[in-house]
């Protein structure tokens, strides 16, 4: 049986890659993908701890996270399409209308 720590370490690495994606990339769609990667990393840690403690509650939480992620992607991509229609770009540096 693979120890839980290995799974959590992998989850930490994936989460960090997701954070780097949000910070470095400027293509708004790739930023969204990085957010999805972070959610997946969190899911992996939840499932790993659920297996360690034999508590199904962790898996239920993952179920909710996946549902919310699906809703978030649908709304986020719709927003992105709306922004693209008015600004003609998906570069997040160009979308700075709210800057003071």
């Amino acid at each position, binding site marked *: *049986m*693979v*120890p*839980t*720590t*290995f*799974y*959590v*370490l*992998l*989850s*930490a*690495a*994936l989460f*960090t*890659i997701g*954070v*780097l*994606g949000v*910070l*470095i*990339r*400027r293509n*708004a*769609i790739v930023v*969204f*993908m*990085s957010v999805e*990667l972070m959610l*997946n990393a969190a899911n*992996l840690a939840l*499932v*790993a701890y*659920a*297996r*360690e403690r*034999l508590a*199904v*509650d962790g*898996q*239920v939480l*993952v*179920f909710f996270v996946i*549902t919310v992620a*699906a*809703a*978030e*992607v*649908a*709304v986020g*991509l719709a*927003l*992105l*399409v*709306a922004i*693209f229609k008015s600004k003609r*770009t*998906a*570069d997040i*540096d160009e979308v700075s209308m709210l800057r003071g």
Partner: protein
Amino acid sequence: MDFVLFFLTAAIALAGAIAMLVARNAIHSALFLLLNFGAIAVLFLLLQSPFLFTIQLSIYAGAIMVLFLFVVMLLGAEQVEAAQDKLPWQQPLALVMGAGLLVIAVITAVRGGSNDAPPGGEAAEAFGDPASLGELLFTEYLLPFQITGIILLVAVIGVVVLNQQRTQAQSEETPGERPSSSVQP
């Protein structure tokens, strides 16, 4: 056997994530992310969660990635980062802060996780059964489950509102113009 499968899958997941980060083309990023989702689904299976394996494949790898690919192709936004970076100092700073986060996360993971073997017996055999997950979902977590339905409904309504056809007055203006100019006299 478990270890071989774990390290192989973990390597694929990490490679997919890093390739997604560095790929210049957004479509390649999406496909590498798909590889990563598939690898994580296999890890769910290794963690005795067959139900989550199924919904990971059908919702993440199926529905969400198709949505991503569709939007990338619809917008033609494969490569928007050709222009000069307006914040050149931001990238090295992000790398440093990412490294710091990784160190903190690894320390937390090593201190928080136990290396004990999971308890065996009857509970271990019933664990991960979709029936037990469903039972919990419809008893203890019934209210959150219903709220999930409302979230999905709101998301559907939001998407329809955001992308509905514009009214006649708005559609007459030039495409490059900002929408706010239509309300000015």
